[in-house]
């Protein structure tokens, strides 16, 4: 751990001391790579913000939000009765344990897309301050300012001293006008009737309002919970607001949702962030025509029908899709269902694949990145994973071909709408090739509205990879989205527009997030446990890996320490990973005999060789069963 008292802070301390020499005020900031330890000492009494140096007697600990890193640091700094929080933070703290109790089941079919860095334990703060309420302490006034956006419970604490204003803002904004990541902004957009899953940067409007609120307060300094003090708030606030708006404008211009929602709802999204004269318009819809007779649309299932009347399904998203296949058989419209290809792991495409395969006695095909989530859904935490396991999946390699009736199939890994995604290129005589690309594009653009899907912005994967796949096919190749009853295809100009705007967005995101590579800021699961959940009996052993994807363009070393809440053991590991590569290291936890049944969380603290610390970054769930 590095401890670097900041120069800027010392100057601040001196000016405060000068202003009220009798009171002997001192602000101390120990800038750490995990969380800044911020305290104010006055008349030999001390208050702190989020985290305090060990051994310091704290009168009040003000919390800016209660994600796991903050709540864990708070527990280590002062007993909860000394905590001062907003009502929103208090609510999260009071419901942490029930959240995790329900999470064993709720993690499936999950579309809320909230960051999972929820505290592990319930706590009751001693003091709750509402909007604009103040706390008087040793002659200072400390006022609660709600600043939601990066987190739902985001709170800033304004400390006024003589003519100076210092604002403690948590993770709302970091030095240089940056934020820790982009995926934390995912949220529903009520004005546009858009749910959390489709709500890319959904909380950015709240965040911009918080930024404007701070601009109005005109503080002399902003002290965030991570990184350097913001000594020139005006510039950093303006930089951050502009970057956020530019990213959102770029997103809207290539957005697949234009196809579905049209101008009215997209305008509602744009206006709340960019204002009424936003000037954003989506790309004109790409050429689209009706599906051919050999491809039937049934919800998110597409049924290919061969010349001799047999069927091959792409996705079976639920009981209703299954009923449709049954009816097609019962009505003699197809003689059999010969196979099922799963495009990706969302439940509206997979929930009834297992049952359909058993009933029709047909094989299920998928690329490797999809197959394991079908067979072992509990191993994965991704948006909308169905708990309905598929008995057996035939893994198809990248580029593997298969002949079925009068069709020629080529299987592709296709990390578009989500990383765990495949595609099927279908060729038949007397028809242009048709590329079934799951949910990765619509005629209006890119389906990247949910960052929890892991839309990586790298040259070797994500949409850059998908564009190359399209470009590798003949120009006349049609695309099919599972939700849309059309064939569609982009012109060169349209595709180039999408690629160029996407690259521009990547560059903007790189400036906005405080990482060496933007993919850390859009991919919460760059470090994760595998499996995500498992059941173990008392006396048994839970085996797991921590999997890390080094998004950096240089080799990195990651130290890992497990926080085992079952056996109280300390497990450590380290991974040195070449640039852009993935690696994993194994751990095991012995569950002692007599461990009560229930849900247990194990988290991992990560530390990068450059000093970046991420306490409690990822979690795995262990259910102890009789």
């Amino acid at each position, binding site marked *: 751990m590095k401890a670097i008292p900041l120069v800027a802070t010392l100057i601040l301390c001196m000016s405060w001391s000068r202003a009220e020499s009798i009171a002997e005020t001192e602000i101390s900031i120990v800038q750490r790579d995990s969380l800044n330890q911020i305290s104010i000492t006055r008349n030999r009494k001390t208050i702190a913000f989020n985290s305090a140096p060990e051994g310091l007697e704290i009168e009040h600990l003000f919390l800016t939000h209660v994600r796991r890193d903050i709540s864990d640091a708070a527990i280590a700094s002062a007993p909860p009765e000394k905590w001062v929080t907003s009502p929103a933070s208090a609510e999260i703290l009071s419901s942490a344990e029930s959240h995790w109790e329900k999470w064993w089941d709720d993690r499936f079919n999950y579309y*809320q*897309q909230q960051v999972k860095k929820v505290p592990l334990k319930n706590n009751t703060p001693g003091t709750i301050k509402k909007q604009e309420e103040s706390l008087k302490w040793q002659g200072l006034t400390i006022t609660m300012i709600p600043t939601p956006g990066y987190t739902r419970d985001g709170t800033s604490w304004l400390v006024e001293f003589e003519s100076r204003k210092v604002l403690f803002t948590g993770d709302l904004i970091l030095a240089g006008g940056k934020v820790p990541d982009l995926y934390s902004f995912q949220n*529903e957009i009520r004005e546009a*009737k858009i749910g959390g899953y489709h709500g890319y940067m959904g909380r950015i409007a709240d965040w911009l309002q918080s930024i404007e609120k701070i601009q109005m307060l005109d503080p002399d300094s902003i002290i965030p919970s991570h990184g350097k003090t913001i000594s020139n708030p005006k510039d950093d606030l303006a930089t951050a607001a502009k970057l956020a708006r530019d990213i959102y404008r770029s997103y809207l211009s290539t957005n697949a949702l234009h196809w*579905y*929602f049209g101008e009215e709802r997209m305008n509602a999204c744009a206006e709340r962030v960019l204002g009424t004269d936003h000037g954003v318009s989506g790309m004109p819809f790409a050429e689209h025509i009706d599906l051919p007779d050999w491809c039937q649309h049934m*919800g*998110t299932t597409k049924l290919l029908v061969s010349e001799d009347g047999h069927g091959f399904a792409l996705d079976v998203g639920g009981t209703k899709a299954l*009923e*449709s296949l049954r009816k097609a058989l019962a009505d003699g419209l197809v003689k059999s269902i010969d196979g099922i290809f799963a495009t990706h792991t969302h439940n509206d495409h997979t929930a009834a694949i297992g049952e359909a395969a058993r009933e029709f006695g047909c094989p299920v095909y998928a690329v490797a990145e999809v197959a394991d989530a079908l067979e072992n859904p509990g191993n994965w935490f991704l948006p909308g994973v169905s708990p309905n396991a598929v008995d057996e999946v035939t893994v198809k390699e990248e580029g593997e071909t298969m002949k079925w009736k009068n069709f020629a199939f080529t299987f592709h890994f296709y990390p578009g709408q989500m990383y765990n995604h495949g595609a099927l290129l279908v060729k038949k005589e007397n028809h242009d090739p048709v590329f079934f690309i799951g949910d990765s594009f619509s005629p209006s653009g890119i389906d990247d509205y949910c960052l929890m899907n892991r839309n990586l912005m790298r040259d070797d994967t994500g949409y850059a990879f998908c564009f190359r796949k399209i470009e590798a096919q003949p120009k006349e190749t049609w695309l099919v989205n599972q939700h849309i009853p059309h064939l569609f295809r982009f012109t060169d100009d349209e595709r180039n527009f999408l690629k160029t705007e996407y690259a521009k967005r990547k560059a903007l995101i790189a400036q906005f997030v405080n990482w060496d590579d933007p993919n850390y800021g859009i991919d919460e699961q760059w470090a994760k446990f595998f499996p995500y959940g498992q059941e173990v009996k008392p006396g048994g052993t839970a085996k797991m890996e921590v999997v890390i994807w080094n998004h950096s363009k240089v080799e990195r070393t990651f130290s890992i320490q497990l926080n085992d809440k079952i056996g109280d053991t300390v497990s450590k590991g380290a991974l040195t990973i070449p640039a852009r590569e993935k690696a994993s290291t194994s751990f095991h936890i012995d569950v002692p005999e007599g461990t009560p049944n229930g849900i247990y969380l194990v988290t991992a603290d990560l530390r990068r060789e450059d000093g970046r610390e991420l306490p409690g970054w990822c979690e795995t769930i262990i259910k102890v069963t009789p």
Partner: protein
Amino acid sequence: MKGHQLSACIAILASAWTTHANSHESLYNTAEIHLTAPGTISIHFSVHAPELILAPETDFGAIGDDWLAAKQDGEIEELVTLAREFVSERYGIYSKDRDLVSKLELQFEHPSLIRVPDREGGPRPGCILASLLLENPGGELTFSYKEEGEKRLLLATIRPASFPKTHDLEAGTAVVIPLPEPPEKPFNQAWYLVPLALAFAVVNWMVIRRKTSKLSVNS
């Protein structure tokens, strides 16, 4: 048969084909036209209930299969009222220039059924099914999706022994659906007999009268 019983029957009839996605209900508005019974047209509008309200407490992020299940009867009834408005404001169904959509004729399921998500024959999770049962007028039907639609509409037409035909409509557009020939009705058959019977009676009367006058002359 009470309204909700009728609509429950309609829902079960509607269950055979699935033409719309099970999840991501918010992407499209959806409707189905069932032309499987020759004398009637049943039309089902699936209304994504959370979008009917914009109350601050509506947590769109938390909408799942159980969103409707947690609603009280009164809340369900309010949603049904809003759904009735939603359908009548967005859809126009015309036959021979007559608008067949009427708020009063829309049928909804009983609140206890609306609460149960994704059951067999029921609507998609989070959705309320509004149904309309019409006599088949023959000819064709114009299905108009009005400007107020806000998003696209997937409209499926379902006919016996064939795959559903799905139309993908932008708001402000319409599609013409050919209808099957309606069967002849018993009432109509009786009505056709009336002029025949009258003609038969007139002829008989004339014949009798002629015979009578001949008898008179002869006498």
